[in-house]
């Protein structure tokens, strides 16, 4: 983060050929964990997605029937949407809404922490406060929304008490609103941290220079701060988008189980032992998320920026 970082990096790169075996050994533990608990299960998932299945058994095979079932009627039904398309569309919409909200909030908070809070202890204290949503378990956190947003919850009672509404607002809970709210509440931190990290690396003299050159506050923000925060924004976006795309717990609980998500579809299929079709769905989901990440990394070359 400080000025001394760059030369050390350069040294490490230069020294690399001499100590290549040492580097491999250093990387080995994590590589093995990755191989055993990520690559192998992933390969199995892909393999199973081509298997044949019935109520209680799986038969190794190479069949495309699971993929056919995933996209059953998708072309024939156009322009109306098949279940898979409708579910992806709904999931994508949530991902987009959550992304916009967390980006605006995360950027704002990071900006405040990086540029307005002067002392490091204070920054740390405020940072810790941002992690408060993670101090309880997922389920407790979700259940706690009911007394707050429910028909007889605090918000509705408050609104009625001040005369803002005459009847309880139903859309506060078990609606798209509540799902996005929960996402924002949970995942703003994932957006904020990488952006803050980028901001902390910005050389303050650049901002002074912009001001000296006559740029207004907005111009500085738009032409200096945001371009330099791009890696943070992209990394935060990858976090938020991938988590939301695969989520089924939050959508389920906050949507009253009435809103579809790809994760939920996969979960239902798994619980009825339809592993191959669940695997096919998972492979499709993985493909789409990888495409999204690929597109994001096209926008910014993260490796170079880091």
């Amino acid at each position, binding site marked *: 983060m400080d000025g001394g970082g760059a030369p050390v990096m350069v040294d490490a790169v230069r020294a690399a050929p001499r100590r290549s075996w040492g580097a491999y050994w250093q990387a080995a533990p994590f590589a093995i964990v990755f191989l055993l608990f990520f690559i192998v299960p992933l390969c199995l998932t892909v393999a199973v997605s081509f298997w044949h299945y019935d109520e209680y*058994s799986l038969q190794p095979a190479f069949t495309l029937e699971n993929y056919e079932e995933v996209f059953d009627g998708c072309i024939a039904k156009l322009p109306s949407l098949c279940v898979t398309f409708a579910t992806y569309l709904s999931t994508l919409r949530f991902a987009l809404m959550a992304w916009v909200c967390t980006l605006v909030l995360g950027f704002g908070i990071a900006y405040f922490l990086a540029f307005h809070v002067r002392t490091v202890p204070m920054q740390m204290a405020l940072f810790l406060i941002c992690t408060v949503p993670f101090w309880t378990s997922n389920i407790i956190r979700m259940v706690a929304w009911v*007394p707050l947003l*429910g028909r*007889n919850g605090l918000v509705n009672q408050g609104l009625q008490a001040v005369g803002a509404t005459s009847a309880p607002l139903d859309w506060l*809970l078990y609606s798209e609103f509540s799902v996005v709210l929960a996402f924002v509440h949970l995942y703003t931190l994932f957006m904020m941290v990488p952006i803050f990290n980028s901001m902390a690396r910005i050389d303050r003299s650049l901002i002074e220079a912009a001001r000296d050159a006559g740029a207004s506050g907005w111009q500085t923000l738009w032409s200096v701060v945001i371009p330099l925060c791009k890696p943070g924004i992209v990394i935060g976006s990858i976090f938020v988008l991938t988590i939301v795309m695969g989520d089924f717990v939050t959508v389920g609980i906050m949507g*009253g189980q009435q809103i579809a998500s790809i994760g939920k579809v996969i979960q239902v299929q798994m*619980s009825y032992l*339809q592993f191959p079709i669940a695997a096919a769905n998972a492979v499709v989901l993985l493909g789409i998320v990888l495409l999204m990440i690929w597109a994001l990394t096209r926008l910014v070359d993260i490796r170079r920026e880091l």
Partner: protein
Amino acid sequence: MTEMNRRGLLRAGAGLAGVAAGTGLAAPAVHAQEPVTLRYLGTAVNQSAEIAAKVKQDLGITIEYIPVVTDDVIRRAVTQPNTFDLLDMEYFSVKRVLPSGNLQGIEARRIKLFDKITPVFTRGVTAGGRTLGEQGTAPKKVQFMNGRGGKDLATSPTEWMTLIPTTYNADTLGIRPDLIGRPVASWAELLNPQFKGKASILNIPSIGIMDAAMVMEATGQYKYPDKGNMSRAEIDRTMAMLTEAKKAGQFRAFWSDFNESVNLMASGETVIQSMWSPAVTKVRSQGVACTYQPLKEGYRAWASGFGMPRTLEGRKLDAAYEFINWFLSGWAGAFLNRQGYYSAVLETAQANMQPYEWAYWMEGKPAEQDIKAPDGSLLEKAGTVRDGGSYEQRMGGVACWNAVMDENTYLIRKWNEFIAS
């Protein structure tokens, strides 16, 4: 996660208490060998710390609960039969687990109270002679198999049982009488637009669709040959009705967990929903009016029982029989009856209950004195009558049983479509 931790704590506490109470009594004579531990796979609702403690005290057997949700019970039973010693699952699951060959037949002659098991399971009638509805997976259809290692169901009673019944009940709709303010007498009310945004059903496809089928018949739109085993056309038709209701905003939320259903009802988010008997009791114990409303079309019943995995053998197998025999011998039955469930052997449970308790829970008579839960908390005040009345009235009114349909795969697809609509 939190639920597991809490259970773990409770269990650990109960286990310690059991050990403390049990060392002086049961251990030396009966079990000279080291004590047996049975890993008990089932849903959390049936896994009481009190039962585990009592077994430890009476038999010296340690029960190690593995709490999972209904669907996971089946998944574990089919895919990992060696990870548990005793299976507590619903009768409708038999059709899905038995073909995997992972269930070993239970020898009827080793079950001491076999003859005393209520005829609901063996013949499909109540002790009082009322015939139960047979639509769906009625227990008598899946009660017997052809041999210890059989994969097929027997059509008539044999010596080999798939499951030994533990508990069962008749389910109906729970309502909030204070918020509805008028009598409710039919399943049709579940989709009555008057309760728009205030209704809920169970988010388990095979059960949710049965509730919908009850509504369909109640409104006179269609009469199913068997609600528990629909044809594709019948599934389409039923799901179409549910989809229409969902799009019109009839449902507040779908629930899949006991506590969720309690929360929805107690907070007033819903005023009418399919529910389980102890959940209604729990809402009421929070001081909120809630009725387990008997309906004229009848009840949707369920039953669960103990099964043994194929891999169980030796001392653990003996211990499993010992545990099951103990379970039927009365203490556990009384424990279940006091929660609003029904026990498989009624006589022994009755002997373990106070006459006023029996009169309230089983005979549908007004409570002579306050009714207490097994943990001693107040459930009902003196003078209350159980919703739906006596055992004979409630079980005799069963119209259909929770089921797994032949077209299950198709149903799952349609259910996912329904959620996405």
